[in-house]
């Protein structure tokens, strides 16, 4: 099976969907002639031209809102945010318009729009460029949010997101763009709301999404090598809809849980998962649910400290050992 980067996997998904559906259009800052700030859209403008790949000026509220309006009339815009951190200037368009218009119209309207881009810290760019807003988006009924952790998932989830008839926010990760995974040549789509066990284990469950899955996998290797402990790693892939069944299943299997989450701890995604586990699987637990999140301060610039502000394998191992 060919090994391709996370970046290329998304690029392939976009190209395949542009070919499949004449209403798919890529819009964003620097997506066309510049080939994408992170080269995710590289070559697409050259292949598909001005109509299908459109450079937008720096006006996130304007062009995201425009995409929402166009989607109401059946266009399927895939809007790139150079960083999800920039979504905050388009918040009204994303939350109030994409998120609420179906409800407020009593179901008369739907918005088949995708809003995508990187949403991560860890790249020494300071707090304003390091936000992870998946918890904010997931807090808004009407919106969907997915956070792929691998190239394989990024491609399959992106295709599902574009074909979905509701607004889907795809949160990628610049630290993963250059990483490679096996991705088949054949067409495949990964449904939203289906989690994936990235590593089988029997002693403890690590539940994560996005790059935290990679962190959890590294922690699992350390535990296996140094302590003979087998951790299961469950990748949520999609935050809303959420594969609750898969979560409850792994909890019932291992009885111990560490949630790994690059969100800040207060009202983060893992807060919801922890609440859900104690409500629905209390009797399956042999120990309190543990969490490893980003340290609770704005994202720091200093490269030395930023590394430890995000969840690290060592912190996951430490938390795991406390409940084993």
């Amino acid at each position, binding site marked *: 099976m060919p090994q391709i980067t996370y970046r290329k996997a998304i690029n392939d998904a976009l190209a395949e969907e542009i070919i499949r559906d004449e209403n798919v259009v890529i819009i964003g800052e620097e997506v066309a002639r510049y080939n994408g700030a992170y080269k995710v859209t590289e070559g697409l403008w050259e292949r598909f031209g001005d109509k299908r790949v459109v450079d937008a000026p720096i006006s996130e509220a304007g062009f995201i809102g425009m995409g929402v*309006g166009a989607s109401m009339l059946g266009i399927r815009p895939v809007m790139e945010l150079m960083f999800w951190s920039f979504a905050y200037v388009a918040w009204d368009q994303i939350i109030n318009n994409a998120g609420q218009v179906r409800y407020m119209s*009593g179901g008369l309207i739907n918005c088949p729009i995708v809003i995508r881009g990187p949403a991560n810290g860890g790249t020494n760019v300071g707090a304003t460029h390091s936000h992870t807003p998946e918890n904010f988006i997931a807090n808004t009924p009407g919106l969907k949010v997915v956070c792929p952790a691998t190239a394989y998932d990024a491609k399959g989830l992106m295709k599902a997101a574009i074909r979905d008839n509701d607004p889907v926010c795809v949160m990628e990760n610049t630290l993963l763009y250059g990483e490679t995974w096996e991705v088949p040549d054949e067409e495949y789509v990964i449904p939203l709301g289906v989690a994936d066990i990235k590593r089988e284990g029997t002693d403890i469950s690590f539940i994560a999404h996005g790059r935290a899955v990679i962190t959890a996998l590294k922690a699992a290797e350390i535990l296996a090598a140094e302590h003979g402990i087998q951790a299961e790693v469950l990748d949520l892939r999609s935050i809303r809809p959420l594969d609750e069944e898969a979560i409850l299943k792994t909890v019932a299997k291992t009885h111990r849980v560490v949630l790994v989450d690059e969100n800040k701890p207060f009202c983060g995604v893992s807060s919801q998962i922890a609440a859900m586990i104690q409500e629905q699987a209390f009797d399956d637990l042999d120990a309190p649910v543990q969490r490893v999140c980003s340290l609770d301060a704005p994202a720091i610039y200093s490269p030395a400290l930023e590394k430890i502000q995000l969840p690290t394998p060592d912190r996951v191992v430490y938390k795991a050992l406390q409940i084993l």
Partner: protein
Amino acid sequence: MISVTEEEVAIDPADYAQAKINKSLSSKDKIGLLREMLRIRRFEQVSLKFYNQGVMGGFLHLYIGQEAVAVGTISLMGDNDHIITAYRDHGHALAVGMSMNECMAELLGKATGCSRGKGGSMHYFAPDKNYWGGHGIVGGQTPLGLGLAYALKYKGLKGCCFCYMGDGAVNQGAYHESLNLAALWKLPVVYVIENNKYSMGTTIDRSSAMRNCLAERADGYGIVWDIANGEDLYEVRAKAHNALERAHKHSLPTVLEIDTYRYYGHSVADANAKKYRSPEEIERYKAHHDPLRLWEKRLVDEGVMTVEEIEKLDESIKDEANAAAQFALDSEFPAPETIFEDVYWEVDNNTESGSTGRHFFGD
């Protein structure tokens, strides 16, 4: 101005009745325009009673005094023309042909409301009539209107989007971003600024920096703009038609500022409605600038209708409004389980995507 169409030159500013688009109106058409304005006024007068009786909740932003703007512009719409507006949306809804029943029921939060009781006064929708709402956040609809125009152009349809907004919305960033995009990408959108002179309780001179008028700001983006007197239905139609033609023929945007006036407060809950402006000012508009009375006078002068015929029409519309009120009162509230409907298309339509994973949380 960057372009002047033939039709524009053809308008005699002294008499908009002679504009081609107005000369083509039959007597029946003219009576139809009166009917639509009367429907708005009578509908809202009944809704005001509901509000004062505490039968409905939320806000009630009345359109009374501004009727010629919605009716005049919407009367020009063809199959591929679309509209979107802000929260003062009853007039546009009725003018596109929505029934008083569904609109009144929505005010009361009933299941028979146009939005099944989920939107309320500020959020009327009728996509089947090319009416995309009804939006509550000031200026928030301006990029959406741009998007409707983008979709029309993308699909190669000869159409246009009238995107209505108040004078208060011109200072929102999203509007300026939209103007830039509209000009940059040559999108067939017409921003209709319904200038009723007050953004809630703040007068224009205290909120907006400008040289002569709000529309003039379009110059900064190279967008053609115009101003119209909103008390004259003929003028509204003539000038809006120019904008529509510019969109249809040249795929170019327009900013059209229409001078108008609201008789009631920003909303009915506006406690200061008669403090930030004088009662005399309101009376002056009602007495001398009322678009409905002026249109009635036109029709009598032109020999299209007699006073008696107008009264008879008015009575029938009052009956329609009262019947709608009864319909709304008699309608059921939505069932509790409908709270979770109309959130996700995929769930509502029971698709595979709507059934993988959990979409709703809590109890």
